[in-house]
C-alpha cells in the first residue's frame, strides 16, 4: 500500500501541467481583468468600488441584454432538452431502420463548426431564404425572417446542442436496467407513468448534467448570436464585444464578462450539487 502522502503528491504532480496552463492563460488574466473593473480613480487615488457594476445595471439596454440573454439561454436549453430527451428515449427503446437513421442524423451537428452552422441557418431561414421559398410554393406569401432575432438564435443553438444533450441523456438511459422497466410494466403502469415514475427519477443525474452544461454553453456562445442575432436586444457575449471594440469601454466589457461568469457559476453550482448528491447516494 502506498502512503496517502505519496499518493497525494503524485496526484498533484500529474495534475500540474494542464493546471499550470489553465492558471497562466485563463485564471490569472481573468482575475487581473476583474480586479481592474473594481478599481476606480477618485480624487487621484485608486479606490475599490462597484461603480462600474452600478453603471452597468443602470443602463437600460444592458439590463435588457442580461434579461434577454438569460431567457434566450433558458428557452434554448429547455427546447434542446425536450427534443434530445424524445430522441434519446426512442434510440434507447426502439430498434429498426428509423432508429438507425435517427442515430446517424442527430450526431451530425457536432461535426459542423459553429461559424458554418450559423451561416447555413442564415441561408436557410432568412427573409427570402430557402424556407420562405418553400412556403411560397405552397401558397404562403412573405414569410418573415426567422433569423436575426431571438427565434434565429434559439433555433441555431438548439441545432448545435442536440448531439451533446442526446449523447448524455442516452448514456443515462442506457444505464437503466431493462428489468426495472419490465417490472413497472408488469404491475400495469402505462407508458407515461413508467416514464414519470421510473425513468425520469433514475435519469436525474444525466438531466442535471445536460441542463446545466447546456445553460453554460449557450450562455457563453459568441459566434451564433453574433452572426444570427438581431440588433437589439443582444446576447451579453455580443454586447461585451461591442463595448470592447466599438464603444472604447473595455472596463464595462470585462464587468459584463464577470457578470456572465457569475451567472454561469450559478448553473455550475447546480451541476455540482446535482452530481454530488448522486455520489452520496451511491457510496
Amino acid at each position, binding site marked *: 500500500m502506498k502512503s496517502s502522502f505519496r*499518493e497525494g503528491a503524485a496526484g498533484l504532480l500529474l495534475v500540474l501541467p494542464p493546471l499550470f496552463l489553465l492558471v497562466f492563460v485563463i485564471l490569472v488574466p481573468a482575475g487581473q481583468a476583474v480586479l481592474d473593473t473594481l478599481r476606480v480613480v477618485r480624487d487621484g487615488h485608486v479606490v475599490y468600488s462597484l461603480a462600474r457594476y452600478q453603471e452597468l445595471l443602470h443602463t437600460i439596454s444592458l439590463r435588457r441584454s442580461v434579461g434577454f440573454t438569460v431567457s434566450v439561454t433558458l428557452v434554448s436549453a429547455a427546447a434542446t432538452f425536450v427534443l434530445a430527451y424524445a430522441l434519446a428515449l426512442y434510440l434507447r427503446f426502439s430498434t429498426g431502420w428509423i432508429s438507425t437513421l435517427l442515430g446517424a442524423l442527430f450526431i451530425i451537428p457536432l*461535426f459542423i463548426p459553429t461559424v458554418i452552422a450559423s451561416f447555413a441557418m442564415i441561408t436557410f431561414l432568412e427573409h427570402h431564404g430557402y424556407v420562405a421559398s418553400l412556403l411560397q410554393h405552397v401558397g404562403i406569401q412573405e414569410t418573415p425572417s426567422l433569423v436575426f432575432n431571438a427565434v434565429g438564435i434559439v433555433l441555431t443553438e438548439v441545432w448545435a446542442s442536440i448531439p451533446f444533450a442526446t449523447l448524455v441523456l442516452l448514456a443515462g438511459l442506457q444505464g437503466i436496467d431493462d428489468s426495472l422497466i419490465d417490472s413497472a410494466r408488469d404491475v400495469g403502469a402505462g407508458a407515461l407513468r413508467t416514464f414519470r415514475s421510473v425513468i425520469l427519477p433514475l435519469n436525474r443525474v444525466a438531466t442535471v448534467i445536460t441542463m446545466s452544461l447546456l445553460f453554460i454553453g449557450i450562455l457563453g456562445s459568441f459566434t451564433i448570436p453574433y452572426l444570427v442575432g438581431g440588433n437589439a436586444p443582444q446576447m451579453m457575449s455580443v454586447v461585451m464585444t461591442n463595448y470592447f471594440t466599438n464603444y472604447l469601454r473595455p472596463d464595462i466589457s470585462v464587468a459584463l464578462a464577470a457578470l456572465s461568469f457569475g451567472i454561469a457559476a450559478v448553473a455550475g453550482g447546480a451541476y455540482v450539487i446535482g452530481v454530488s448528491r448522486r455520489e452520496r447516494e451511491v457510496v
Partner: protein
Amino acid sequence: MSAVGEAVRERTAGLFWFWSIGAFRRVLPVLFLVALAAFILGPLLSLILWAFAGQWFYPGLLPQEFSTKWWTVVFGNRSVVSSIKYSLMTAPTVTALSALICLPAAYAFARFRFPGRRLLLLSFLSANSFPKIGLYITIATLFYRLNLMTTFWGVVLIQLVGTLLFMIWIPTGTFRGINRSLEEAARDVGASGLRTFFQITLPIALPGLLVAGLFAFLAAFDEAQGTLIVGSPNYITMPVMMYTLVLNYPQPVGAVFSILLTLPSLVLLLLAQRLLRQGYLAAGYTL
C-alpha cells in the same frame, strides 16, 4: 409504488412499451424522423446548393443556373489552400499534445486522492465559460514574453487551452469506470505500475480516450480568435478565414468554403459514430 388498478392493456412486445399509443404508433416516428431530418439537414442542403449556384433568385427552389465558378474563385486564392494545410497541421498536434499532458492528470483525478481534487477538476470548466474577449491583450503579452507569438507552437498552445476540459473530464470518467481489480490482479503477478497501465488500463480505456481526442480535435479545429492573434501572419487557419468570408463575400463563396471546412470533420464523423454512443462522454461529466 402502488399497484395500478387499471384494465389490462394491449401489451406490445418487448421494449416498445412506451410507444403504445394507438394508431399513431407507426406514423409518429416517421414524422419525427422527417421533421428532424428537415431541421438538421435543411440548412446544410441549402448551403450545398448555394455552393453550386450561378444565379439564384427568390423564390426558386433550386438555383436558376448551376455553376462551379465559385470553387475556382476559392481554390484560386492561395491563402485558402494554405489555411487548409495549417488547420490540418495544428489540430492533430494540439490533440496529441493535449493527450500527453492531460491523460496523466486524468488518471490522477480518477485514481489518486489528493487535497482539492474535486475543486481542481471543476476549475477546468472555467476555461470554457469565462468570456475571453477582455483577456487577449494579457495573453498576447505573455506569449510575446515567451517568444511564442507568430509561431506554430504558440498557435498550438492557445488552441490547447480550449481542449483541456474535454481531455481531462472524459478520460477521468473513463478511467474511473475501469474496474480496479483488473489492475490489482496484474500487479499481483508482478507487473510494474507503468506496465500495468500500458498493458491493462490503456487498452480498456482506449475508446473513451478516442472520444476525448475527438472532442479536443473539434475544439482545436474550431478556434478562431486566439489563433488569429497568436498565429498571424504565418498561421492563418480555416476558421479564421471563415469569419472574413462569411461577412464580406457573396454568399456562394462562403458556402464553398463552408463545405471545405466541414469535410475533415465529416471524415471523423464516419469514423467515430459508434464510438460516441458508448457513454464515455457522459461518464466524463459526472465529476
